[in-house]
């Protein structure tokens, strides 16, 4: 092939541009820490990384939801544990009642029981940090009215939060109401005929009227049933806490794994990039040197050497 003056020039420019493009790409990879910047850098890799990024975002959202669920289920469990203590205490008071007790003594027990009912009301009517009632169902009303009766405005609807894909966790519990309409919850259960508030209030009535036999024959069994109902809720809220805790642990592991995957996909492998940079530098230098040497070669050099002495 016949070689002309522009052959060397074109080759030098072409190889220089090629090397500079690769150097710029490597410089960007090393300086940003990302092996891909734009989707076009590696469409398949970008697609995979974008999908993983979506998964990671979703995991982060689930982690946030799990944190909320942890708080809410812990609130529920604390409330049920406190409620259990209150009802257990009431049971102990009633267990101490005997037919030998005077009316005044029975009324004293009734006063103690009134204090416990006040505590129960306080626990059941507590609000969350945003001011909404925790146990009024989704209606956002106090489950127990100021007159100490069930609020018929409540409902038994509970809230679930997805803490993982297809893993809803119940994060609210409803107090319930004897009605009408009757609503099942931790204070009332239609299936077993348990009415926590009603049992305590009936016991107070019987105590205040000095009817010890009614307390022993009716109220003690009713409060025991109430205690059983609350116990079941202590157990179920603890189970919800445990489920959220398990989900949180899994989410943490999945998040770490997903982040590692994304980093592996998009982060620059610095040792490899550094070696490539070194190789490119050498290649570029060699290319420049070759171009400089070859382009300087010309018959003109020899002609000047011959003609100069003359």
């Amino acid at each position, binding site marked *: *092939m*016949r*070689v*002309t*003056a*522009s*052959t060397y020039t*074109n080759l030098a420019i*072409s190889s220089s541009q090629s090397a500079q493009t690769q150097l710029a790409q490597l410089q960007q990879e090393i300086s*940003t*820490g*990302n092996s*891909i*910047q*734009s*989707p*076009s850098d*590696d*469409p398949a890799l*970008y*697609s995979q*990384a*974008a*999908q993983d*990024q*979506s998964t990671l*975002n*979703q995991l982060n*959202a*689930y982690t*946030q*939801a799990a944190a*909320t*669920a942890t708080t*809410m289920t812990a609130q529920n469990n604390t409330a049920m544990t406190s409620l259990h203590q209150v009802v257990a205490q009431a049971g102990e008071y009633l267990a101490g009642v005997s037919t030998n007790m005077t009316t005044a003594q029975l009324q004293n027990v009734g006063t103690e029981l009134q204090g416990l009912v006040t505590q129960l009301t306080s626990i059941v009517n507590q609000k969350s940090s*945003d*001011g*909404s009632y925790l146990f*009024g*169902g*989704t*209606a*956002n009303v106090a489950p127990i009215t100021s007159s100490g009766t069930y609020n018929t405005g409540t*409902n038994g*609807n509970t*809230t*679930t*939060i*997805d803490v993982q894909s297809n893993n809803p966790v119940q*994060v*609210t519990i409803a107090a319930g109401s004897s009605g009408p309409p009757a609503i099942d919850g931790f204070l009332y259960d239609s299936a077993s005929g348990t009415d926590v508030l009603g049992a305590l209030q009936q016991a107070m009535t019987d105590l205040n009227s000095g009817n010890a036999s009614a307390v022993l024959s009716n109220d003690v069994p009713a409060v025991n049933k109430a205690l059983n109902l609350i116990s079941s809720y202590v157990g179920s809220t603890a189970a919800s806490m445990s489920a959220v805790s398990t989900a949180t642990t899994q989410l943490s592991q999945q998040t770490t794994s997903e*982040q590692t995957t*994304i*980093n592996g996909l*998009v*982060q620059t492998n610095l040792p490899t990039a550094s070696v490539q940079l070194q190789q490119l530098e050498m290649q570029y230098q060699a290319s420049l040197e070759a171009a400089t040497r070859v382009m300087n070669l*010309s*018959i*003109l050099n020899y*002609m000047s050497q011959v003609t100069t002495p003359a």
Partner: protein
Amino acid sequence: MLGAQALNAQQLAIQTIGNNLSNVNTPGYARQRANLVETDTMLTGSGEQGTGVSVSDIESVRSTLLDGLVQQSLGSQGYADDQASLTSTVQTALGENFTSTSTTGSASTTSSGAIQTALSNFFTSLQSLAASPSDSTTRQEVVQDATSLTTALNGAYSRIQQTQGQIATDASSITSQINQLSSTIASLNQQIVSVQSASGGTANDLIDTRSQDITQLSSLVNVTATTQSDGTVTVALADAPSVVLVSGINGGGAGTTQSLSVSYAPTSSTPLTVSGSTSGALGAGIPSSGSLGSHLEVANTLIGAPAADGGTGLLGQLDDVADSLKTQMNATNEAGFDLNGTAGTAFFTGTGADNIAVASNIAANPSLIAAASTTGAPLDGSNATVMANIQNSSSVVPAFQDIVSGLGSTVSAAATNQSTQDSVTTQLQNQQNSVEGVSIDEEMTNLISFQQAYSASARFVTTISSLYSTLLAETQ
């Protein structure tokens, strides 16, 4: 006479070398060669006797085959160069790039672009709303994230539309260049015919200039150039041979038979079209190569028209994603109940990605987000969960990721095609240059040769002169 003729011939050859050396870096220049031939012999008593040397012609060393191949390749090169550049510009306009990885301790975060991030934030805040439906701060966050999402969609759409408009402006500039070159080629046709008919030779330099202009034209639009018997060339669009840009020396002006122009109608199903001044509107996708072809391809196919105008390109796809998001969110919000127990209303307004927005009543009052599935249940967030799950709909997040990945593939393929085409063009140009280019060493060697021949001829003239002087001196 013989000596003077030889001196003239060597001098012309040296001048040709000088011209070659002068044009060693001139684009499109083909090296010239002074073809030396023996002059007619003279019959003497001793037989035929040579009468010296003369220059038969000054030949421009050209390869018609390589010239044609280079022109074709430059058409494809112009297309590939602009395709790579324009698609990359569109990708930048979409703005979905991986941002820098920031590392805090052992944890690092990545972000995959404004819209994808906004989509993710929006659905995350809806998930938070499901857990805290009565929380005003969470509701405000949903509105803010929804506004960020619509702003990101509006912005990307607007940037892509602006890019399409700039491509149309650029295409108009390209047609101006095409018309200018067509006019120049027609003018050169006239000059070449004029010079050749006057001198009887070949107008090498004018042909070089015309060839260079045709090469330049080929990179703008794919054309076929046919040389006619009178030395003129006819230039027509390769995709539409009936669309003749230059025909001999005839036609309007300096010989341009028709000019090209572009028209841009953003809401047309084919936003960018090319018309000939006499042929009228050219078919869709014509021209298909050269810079102009690339501009048409990117404006009409890659970007396309809005979905409402039947577009299936980038704008249409963005419209589809926005419409799907709007439709699903509105249906879900309308099926639920707000914080006051009232049935929900449309969440988003707008007709596409260009104008999708959060409904003004919801933007002004986030309590109107219908997070509950039942009325009178302000703590019910189940409808918000349904909204959050819209992210799993194949027509929203995955559809948008497909748009980004598809565009990335297009840009990547364009870059690969550019690289391949660049390699092909370079090889063809090297081959063309191998035949037509000037070699300084070759010219200098020839220069020495002709210089020596000139010296020898001069010595011959001196010797003859000396002989005549001696003869005259003896006869006096």
